């Protein structure tokens, strides 16, 4: 674990000095502050910030994560020629990417949110926690793509498609089903489909905590009942954790046997 700590420490140093990340952190803090400044209503602030948390953050996480690992390929090779286990390097790479991103979210999103006090603390914590979990999922997915696809341009294309699929195409698919089968009782099917996508699950989890949840109709009421229950909460949490662990586990197994 000492090796993992050393690699993580140097990685964090390297990632934090990246101009990209600094610009992103400032941009995040600025956009959050502007949203809070121009929107006085707590629910509206949360709904606006959801776009950053569930659309922009995942895109930046998956692309930055993938680019970082692709660019570090030769350095990974050099580290692997030292007498260290590959697993330690893998954990170091993951943590070294995750920690700077979590800190950027805490500062850029959490900072203005808590300082302004416009959103109830429990709701702000929920929003931030969900944002960090979704970010972790997309960093895992980024690592998964880079370990599985050796070609950088193809890998980045796939990473973008993964983001596009989970953020936009999946929603289109759900909308299509809703319209095509509108005469049938689809509430339970929609609930299952929503749980399967981490972005939708995170969005619904936050939305059902807002006063405006009543506007979501019958489906919203079903989601609310489900997510307020203990079993619903556990299922939702397990699904998000599964989305983090599954890609990471496959990437880990590939990394251990990968030819460099």
């Amino acid at each position: 674990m000492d090796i993992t700590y050393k690699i993580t420490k140097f990685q964090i140093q390297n990632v934090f000095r990246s101009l990209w990340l600094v610009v992103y952190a400032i941009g995040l803090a600025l956009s959050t502050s502007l949203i809070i400044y121009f929107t006085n209503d707590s629910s509206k602030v949360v709904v606006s910030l959801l776009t950053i948390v569930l659309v922009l953050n995942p895109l930046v996480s998956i692309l930055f994560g993938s680019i970082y690992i692709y660019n570090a390929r030769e350095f990974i090779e050099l580290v692997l020629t030292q007498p260290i286990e590959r697993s330690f390097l893998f954990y170091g790479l993951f943590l070294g990417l995750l920690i700077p991103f979590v800190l950027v979210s805490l500062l850029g999103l959490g900072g203005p949110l808590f300082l302004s006090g416009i959103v109830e603390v429990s709701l702000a914590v929920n929003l931030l926690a969900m944002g960090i979990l979704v970010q972790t999922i997309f960093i895992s997915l980024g690592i998964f793509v880079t370990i599985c696809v050796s070609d950088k341009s193809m890998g980045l294309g796939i990473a973008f498609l993964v983001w596009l699929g989970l953020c936009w195409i999946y929603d289109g698919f759900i909308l299509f089903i809703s319209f095509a089968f509108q005469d049938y009782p689809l509430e339970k099917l929609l609930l299952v489909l929503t749980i399967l996508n981490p972005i939708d699950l995170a969005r619904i989890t936050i939305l059902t905590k807002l006063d405006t949840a009543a506007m979501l109709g019958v489906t919203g009421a079903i989601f609310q009942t489900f997510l307020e229950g203990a079993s619903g909460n556990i299922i939702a949490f397990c699904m998000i954790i599964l989305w983090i662990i599954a890609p990471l586990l496959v990437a880990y197994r590939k990394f251990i046997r990968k030819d460099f």
Partner: protein
Amino acid sequence: MIEIKNVSKRFGKLRVLREITLTIPYNQITAIVGPNGSGKTTLIKSILGLVNIDSGEIFFDGSNISKNISYRSRIGYMPQVGHYPENLRVIEVIELIKSLRIDVARKETDSLIQLFSLEPYLDKFIRNLSGGTIQKISAVISLMFDSDVYILDEPTAGLDPVAVVELKNLIRERKNRGATFIVISHQLSEIETYADRLVFMLNGRIVIDNEIHSFIESVGKESLEQSIIYFLKEQNKILINNGYNI
């Protein structure tokens, strides 16, 4: 001693190593030479454990390398082109690699930094350095360990003439202290001046494995370059006569 026994490796349909058997004796400088794509880098990556071989075995001092990674603490490796985290300083990169091992002599690192005139660059970020300076960092990183074996992939490529001389002197000095070197290079005239042994690879096979001077003598040419060209032409003639398409 490094023993490579019947090692084969494929990347998809491409057979990169074909049943390679080779013994690398200690306290010699073995030069691995061959055209691009002949399997040189894959061979050394197999020794380093970066590439998983499909079949065969590699032994380091009698121990199978697939069973234990500790043998790598006895190897110093210099990659063909060094790529380091661009937002780290030179000294941080050196410290990172040093921190992963325990067999580093502090004085050795300092004298290497001095030897390659890297002192002015220690606090500079990697992203601001030239290719030649990065190559010097690779040289320091590979040689700062008190290793038994050094594997250098195109060590002089990109280095300025002074650094090339210093590096070659260092290789000779370490060899005199008992170290073993495996050097990949395309510079045949250069290899002739400091290497003891030649391993020539072609299409994933070893076609020459001999002492350099014995090989030159056996071919009857003046230099290593001429000897290899002559040898390959003769090989081609034999293959064409046997019905192979070159």
